[in-house]
């Protein structure tokens, strides 16, 4: 009885988790960096549109899997920007830094 309850609970949680995982994202922007300043990043997408996304103090930057700072963002470089609930950049992902 206890085992079946645990299995049922786990299934419910998994269903809930997968549903939320699908629902949680607020989108992302992929393209190349067209401009970057303290307050925003502009990304040129494949379709030729330029999308401006606000940067905040909470925005996290990653080069590959390494944590980075805004100074790592270079114009012309590929970028993926994950958006938050208010359209702000939550995470800016850049290609891994090249080894010298």
């Amino acid at each position, binding site marked *: 009885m206890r085992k079946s309850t645990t299995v049922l609970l786990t299934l419910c949680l998994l269903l809930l988790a997968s549903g939320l995982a699908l629902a949680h994202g*607020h989108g992302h922007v*992929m393209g190349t960096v067209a401009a970057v300043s303290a307050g925003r990043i502009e990304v040129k997408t494949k379709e030729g549109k330029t*999308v401006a996304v606000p940067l905040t103090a909470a925005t996290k930057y990653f080069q590959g899997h390494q944590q980075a700072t805004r100074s790592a963002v270079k114009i012309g470089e*590929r970028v993926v920007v994950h*958006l938050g609930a208010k359209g702000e950049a939550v995470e800016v992902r850049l*290609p*891994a830094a090249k080894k010298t």
Partner: protein
Amino acid sequence: MSRRGRFALTAVVVLLLLSAGGLALLRRGLSARDEPGAIERFVARQARHLAVPREARDLKNPLPLTPELLAEARAHFADHCALCHGNDGRGRTEIGRNLYPKAPDMTLADTQKLSDGELFFIIKNGVRLTGMPAWGADTPEDDRSSWQLVHLIHHFPRITAAEIREMEALNPVSPAELRERAEEERFLEGGDEASSPEPTHGHEHH
């Protein structure tokens, strides 16, 4: 006014106030988005305190605190608990923020002052009328996992960015999210340019 008259008047006033409150409640509805009021918080905390038997409250964590134990606890927490509590234990997640009552910020004194035994009891038995379920079976293995989590909860005020990053890699992900991540990796490594899905926000210009 006679004693009976005063009693009747008081009863009418109380009834009127209750009716007005009930009507306001019906009109406005009840939302889990609301913050519990001070009285409700106080009563809930007292109820939670009373729900933990004294002998359970006085238990000390039987596991010695080691870096390996904390790493195991982080992996467990990232997989089972972070969905509501967040990897940093602050409850700033979609579910945590919208539960009623909200998932607590476990780095704060309200949680940190709870004894090892209280935290263990809460993990093992859950908290009624909240989003906190009872976790694990009544086995030594599951009890060990819960005691590990007790150590992690007391570690939350000092958790590092590197530890959180490590936990993020262990959070459950849906197949759709896995595909999305793979696509991003490919793109960042110089693969075919992927189209951006229409962003929900962001200011667009040409």
